[in-house]
């Protein structure tokens, strides 16, 4: 058992940190929202790409850093510590690219990967459908073989950043078989057959969208991997998220906990008596525990990946620990603010974060789906569904 970083990881930290110190814009301390935020994410992606730092997990031959998982953790730590924005193409770079590298043709890789790095193409994910969320394999978007191309008809939902994307990696139905009838394709969003309709989320923002395909065209050269092998590729793509993804969440949550502590002190100084009540003190302790436990679960997970071992149900446990703990932490921030949390003003960011956090027990496998997975791993009969 050993949670110290390898020498290589620390070396990487040194060089990355120097680059960041030189290049990360000081003025970005000022937080921005909306369109400005999206542009900042794009700009940051371009800057990192220019420096060669944008794709930590890709092999070097494709323009990545070829980092070990420990180094990737360091990469994330450094970015979180300076409060850097996530690059706009994170979905493509972190999830789809590795799938393309494993399953794609040389032509596809040569064409798409450099453009992705440089943020010339912005990618979104077309997996979920109105009737296929937790039940992803129930997807119904139809791709009809028309000789040179496929004709796509159907609808995707929960497509993050679709309004800003020109490419979408999309799962479509190419045969009847539930799992063996799904294919993965690259959809050009800038065509007549594709309509994007932004969905307002609970906080009133519109990063999410529905994507309608109405005789949309995908040339056969844009089919990824073998036809009808999409289910395997989708699982591969989603599994890429698991390791480093939760470590990032964990780091962010630790940062938020520190902000919460400051808020506590601030409210006490303002004479808000309820802060000293039993309820909030207990909640503070619970949030501290969640942060520490999540950190330890994530490090255990990464150590296992690092040594090439199966992580078992740890990703599911990390998901549950994070999503529930994070919701509770943000809920505590509202309790600290009391009535003030309701209105726009100095502390409005907490309400926004809180509202957005309601999705965290839903996306990337609902709480109930995670529990199904864990129960199955214990040898209990498999089950489906639930929320």
């Amino acid at each position, binding site marked *: 058992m050993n949670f110290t970083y390898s020498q290589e990881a620390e070396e990487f930290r040194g060089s990355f940190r120097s680059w960041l110190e030189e290049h990360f814009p000081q003025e970005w301390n000022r937080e921005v929202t909306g369109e400005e935020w999206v542009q900042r994410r794009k700009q940051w992606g371009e800057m990192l790409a220019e420096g060669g730092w944008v794709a930590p997990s890709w092999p070097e031959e494709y323009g990545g850093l070829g980092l070990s998982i420990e180094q990737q953790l360091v990469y994330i730590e450094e970015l979180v510590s300076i409060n850097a924005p996530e690059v706009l193409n994170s979905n493509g770079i972190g999830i789809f690219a590795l799938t393309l590298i494993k399953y794609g043709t040389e032509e596809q890789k040569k064409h798409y990967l450099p453009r992705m790095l440089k943020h010339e193409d912005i990618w979104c994910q077309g997996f979920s459908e109105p009737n296929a969320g*937790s039940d992803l394999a129930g997807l119904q978007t139809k791709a009809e073989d028309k000789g040179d191309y496929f004709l796509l008809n159907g609808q995707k939902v929960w497509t993050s950043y679709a309004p800003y994307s020109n490419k979408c990696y999309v799962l479509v139905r190419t045969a009847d078989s539930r799992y063996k009838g799904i294919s993965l394709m690259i959809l050009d969003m800038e065509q007549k057959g594709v309509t994007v309709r932004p969905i307002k*989320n609970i906080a009133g923002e519109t990063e999410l969208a529905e994507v309608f395909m109405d005789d949309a065209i995908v040339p056969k050269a844009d089919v990824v991997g073998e036809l009808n092998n999409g289910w395997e590729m989708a699982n591969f793509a989603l599994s890429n998220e698991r390791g480093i993804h939760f470590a990032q969440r964990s780091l962010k949550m630790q940062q938020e906990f520190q902000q919460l502590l400051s808020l506590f002190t601030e409210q006490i100084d303002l004479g808000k008596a*309820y802060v000293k009540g*039993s*309820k909030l003190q207990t909640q503070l302790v619970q949030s501290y525990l969640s942060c520490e436990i999540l950190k330890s679960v994530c490090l255990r997970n990464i150590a296992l990946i690092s040594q090439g071992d199966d992580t078992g149900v740890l990703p599911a446990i990390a998901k549950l620990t994070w999503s529930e703990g994070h919701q509770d932490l943000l809920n505590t921030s509202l309790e600290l603010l009391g009535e003030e*949390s309701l209105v726009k003003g100095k502390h409005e960011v907490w309400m926004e974060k809180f509202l957005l956090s309601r999705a965290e027990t839903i996306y990337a496998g609902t709480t109930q789906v995670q*529990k199904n997975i864990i129960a199955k791993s214990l040898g209990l009969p498999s089950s489906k*569904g639930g*929320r």
Partner: protein
Amino acid sequence: MEYRYSEQQVMLKKALNSLLKKEMPFETFVEIAETKDGFSKDKWKKLADNGWLAILAQGEFQTLEEVNSLDLMYLSESIGGALFPGPFSLTAGMIVPLLSQLTLSEKQNELLLDIIAGEKLATAILPSLTDQGGTVKFNWPELINSNEEGKVTLTGSYSQLQFLQNSDVVFIPFTNNEDQLSVAIVNTSVNGVKITSQKSVDLSKPQGLLELQNVKIGQEDILSEKGLENLFYATLLTYFTSISGEIIGGADEVLARTVNYVTERKQFGVAVGSFQAVKHMIAEMKVEIEKARSYSIYINSIDGKTDKATWLNIISSRYFNTNMYKKICEDSIQLHGGMGFTWEESIHFWYKASMFQLYHLTHPALMEAYIQQSLLPTAESKDLQYHN
């Protein structure tokens, strides 16, 4: 013992429901919430036209006999279910019963009639639960006032006053030189009054910042009769009862929408509602709502109230209800899956309303402390009346 609503109660409820169905279908609410900052004078007048604002009016303003706070709670369930965007509980549960029990001047009388008719909208500063030297009790917000030449001068500010930006008058309680409670009736359009709309997450209850700079109030606009403070607190109880009704009605509506959703919605080829995990969550929602309903009805029906016990009951049930409401909405969002997270699926409107309730006048941590001190009184708090 009897657990049923009377014929009159059932008839009133039906009438209100049918009005709401006609005047405040969900699309209308959404439109008012999103485009009209949460208030429509037209709809408010529709409610008033049918006499609903005077349901608890007393004396010469009384329209129905034998109507009490429990009736109001029952009716408010419909208001909360429909998320009616207007200060129904404040008006019908507090302002109207309070004014109608006072000796009013002709001008004041007219104001009350205007309020009842929905011609004028009024809001009021209310006391809130605070911790004073280790004892939690209701306290009045502090406003600087001076009393010169028969005029009272008010200076100070008050944040997050419900429906302020839509109101014609504000009732402002203040303590006069003899430490006695008075209430100033302040026209929102007079000099020295500044009103700023504060964007609230709860789109059914707009809030505003009130700033007063040397606002002079003449005696004719001051209520200060003996017993005013007690009456104020008595009607505050009715107000809390009414918003309890809003909570229970809102939670009920959210549950109904959730049951509907999971019954319609399919996953793995079957209705989401057929998964045991889903069913149990819904069952737990039902349990919590019925607990809240039983408790609220019970405390509003028992005889032989003493003042202290009544406040403990009201705070205890409010503590339970507000938590319940928020939890019901959160479970509902979870059960709606991705849809629950969108603006388009409607649950978030109630969710945000539940957050207004959670912190409105009575922070949950202070309610908890209030109950604690009532159960285990310390030397300091033992003999206090809990509101003054």
